[in-house]
């Protein structure tokens, strides 16, 4: 029996090489692992090791030959001492050529927007209480759910979101961590891969940058890379964006960072109902979900449904104020800014429709597009930087789905494209204010 030795590919990109030297000669015994030849590419000189054992029967490509294509037979090995016959050995079947990649699917047709269910009676609740209640309800419901993070247990939460949870659920389910985001995030992701449902509280999302690799490479991609075997049911939550006078490193909006990544879901609540309903959905979701909260909203009070089953589905925006002249799309703390602007505009006879996105990935394109088809004008409002931001994404979706309905170019209102300054006057100049939104609307109405 004879075996052909083929010109090997020694790197992911090699297509041909020079056969620079034979280290074995015709008639030599060859053992698996023996170096039989040296090959040069433009990058390196590499050794070719024998895979099979036998006697080198024939050299087909002389040393010094250049430009030898990968997979060319370079020698013949007779195996098991059997005589070599010159009978042609079948060439290996060629590697299947991958089909030309298909273009990305066209944007899906938009459907009619879905309205929120009526959940009945409400009571005034702070966003802080709403988040705590959501975690407590879900922890009672599912023993696999637990909370970990810095100061979440004995300190009762750096922002008091986890107040009372240690008392009710004990130290196995409410866990203080050292200030080591990279390590504890990786640990939580590992626990989720094995079927637990961690809620990771980041004291602020600024610190989650230290754990970015685990969030993106481990949590978001493992389901895909495992062919659907290994999901990662985990929630990453905490305050996002600017607080007040804490400077550049503690004041950044990460919405577009996370929303960029397939394999993640991203929500960003504004009201107490958003906070409670979205966090409950996030905890129940079998995928990694990023919950971008806002420190300034924690103490604000909103009416929140009291129904024990109250929940807000991920991917559904909410029309906070109906109007017919312009659509204002916002999320998180900017929903409040947009509503204030809408009041001012109303005094001037302009009725703005304010959409609270609530979910950033998936994004409720249907609700936005239906609104723009009615108002024919669009303004987006976000606290983050404009470059490749959420506003840019919303505008593009409207262009894809409702270009012909637009009567004016869309306008983006956003935080200024600078690291956030500390000085009170400069900070105010850098973050969107209601009058910025009013001015933007008046440009196009």
């Amino acid at each position: 029996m004879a075996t052909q030795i083929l010109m090997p590919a020694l790197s992911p990109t090699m297509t041909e090489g020079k056969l620079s030297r034979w280290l074995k000669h015709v008639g030599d015994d060859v053992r698996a692992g023996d170096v039989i030849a040296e090959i040069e590419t433009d990058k390196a000189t590499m050794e070719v090791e024998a895979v099979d054992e036998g006697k080198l029967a024939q050299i087909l490509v002389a040393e010094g030959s250049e430009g030898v294509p990968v997979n060319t037979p370079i020698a013949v090995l007779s195996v098991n001492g059997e005589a070599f016959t010159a009978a042609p050995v079948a060439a290996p079947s060629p590697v299947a050529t991958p089909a030309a990649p298909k273009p990305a699917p066209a944007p899906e047709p938009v459907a009619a927007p879905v309205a929120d269910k009526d959940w009945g009676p409400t009571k005034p609740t702070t966003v802080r209480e709403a988040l705590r209640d959501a975690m407590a309800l879900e922890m009672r419901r599912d023993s696999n759910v637990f909370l970990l993070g810095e100061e979440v247990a004995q300190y009762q939460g750096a922002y008091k979101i986890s107040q009372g949870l240690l008392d009710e659920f004990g130290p196995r389910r409410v866990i203080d961590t050292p200030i080591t985001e990279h390590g504890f995030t990786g640990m939580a992701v590992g626990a989720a891969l094995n079927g637990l449902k961690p809620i990771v509280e980041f004291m602020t999302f600024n610190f989650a940058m230290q754990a970015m690799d685990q969030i993106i490479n481990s949590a978001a991609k493992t389901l895909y890379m495992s062919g659907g075997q290994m999901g990662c049911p985990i929630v990453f939550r905490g305050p996002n964006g600017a607080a007040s006078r804490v400077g550049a490193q503690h004041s950044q909006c990460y919405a577009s960072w996370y929303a960029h990544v397939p394999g993640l879901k991203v929500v960003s609540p504004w009201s107490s109902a958003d906070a409670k309903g979205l966090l409950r959905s996030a905890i129940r979701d079998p995928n990694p979900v990023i919950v971008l909260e806002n420190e300034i909203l924690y103490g604000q009070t909103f009416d929140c449904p009291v129904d024990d089953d109250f929940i807000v589905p991920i991917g559904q925006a909410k029309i906070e104020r109906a109007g017919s002249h312009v659509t204002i799309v916002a999320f998180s703390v900017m929903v409040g800014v947009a509503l204030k602007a809408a009041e001012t505009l109303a005094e001037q006879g302009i009725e703005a429709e304010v959409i609270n996105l609530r979910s950033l990935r998936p994004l409720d394109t249907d609700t936005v597009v239906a609104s723009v088809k009615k108002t024919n004008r669009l303004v987006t409002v976000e606290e983050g930087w404009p470059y490749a931001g959420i506003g840019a994404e919303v505008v593009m979706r409207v262009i894809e789905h409702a270009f012909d309905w637009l009567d004016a170019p869309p306008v983006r209102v956003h935080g200024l494209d600078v690291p956030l300054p500390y000085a009170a006057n400069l900070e105010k100049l850098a973050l969107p204010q209601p009058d910025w939104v009013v001015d933007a609307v008046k440009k196009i109405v």
Partner: protein
Amino acid sequence: MAQAAEARKRGKSKEPAIDRDQLQQAYRSMLLIRRFEEKAGQLYGMGLIGGFCHLYIGQEAVVVGLQMATGPGDQVITSYRDHGHMLACGMAARGVMAELTGRSGGYSHGKGGSMHMFSKSENFFGGHGIVGAQVSLGTGLAFSNWYRGNDRVSLTYFGEGASNQGQVYESFNLAALMKLPVVYVIENNKYGMGTSVDRASASKDLSKNGVPWGIPGLQVDGMDVLAVKDAAEQAVAACRTGKGPFLLEVKTYRYRGHSMSDPARYRTREEVQMMRTQHDCIENARHKLESLGVEETAFKAIDDEVKGIIQDAADFAQSSPEPAESELWTDVLLEA
């Protein structure tokens, strides 16, 4: 090793006889991994495997010795040099090889590749391409055992190249604080790609890297499968009885380059030859088995069986179809 021997002496009055069947089984497992990797190298050379491909040849005794000390339900997680771990965990050679060739019959339907493969049923948690990431993840597997209150242990492998990463020490701290059942296994093959451990690590005895956290450690001869098994039994027992994490530095050697495209000019051919001819784990096991009376026909039978499995895997990996185009869009998210 000395400590392992010491522990053994304490437990029993005399050295236990080597269990011939167990060693023979280990020999077969190591041979299976070696032949698999040789075949993978060959298929790579033919252009049937793409991208990065990190072979385990030379290091087989590490994972085989460790697996001999584990029980059902224990978890395994490692880096990108992962083919050996998968076979040792009981994953089918066919599915692993077909993943290497990017075919639908692969463990990840061709969507993961050499560095990203998983098997929930065999408790193998990957297969991770980012150096060191699996160390925190493996600590999380141990956390899940702690949370559930079971006695399962997480075997978390990494190379000496990852051993000085920040997240490794963050994980040591968490595991020691919470007494998590994790065996950290440093596979010290002397070279993190082209940089020798002497040039990369100020700490010279890596088994002591857990000392500040009170994590006990052992240095083990990773070319001796029974020495690895002995040390692993000690480490696993400590974890199982709630004593917290344990660190093993297993001294080993890879015969091939870091990946397929590494010409390995940072070490001499003599160094590699010396390890291959004098310290090879499979030859070592074979000599021991011969001295225990195992005959040539038995070796031949193992050889033939392994060859058959590998040839079948290679055939399957070439005949299994490429994933359907629809696979592109599946497994991004689970249905909520």
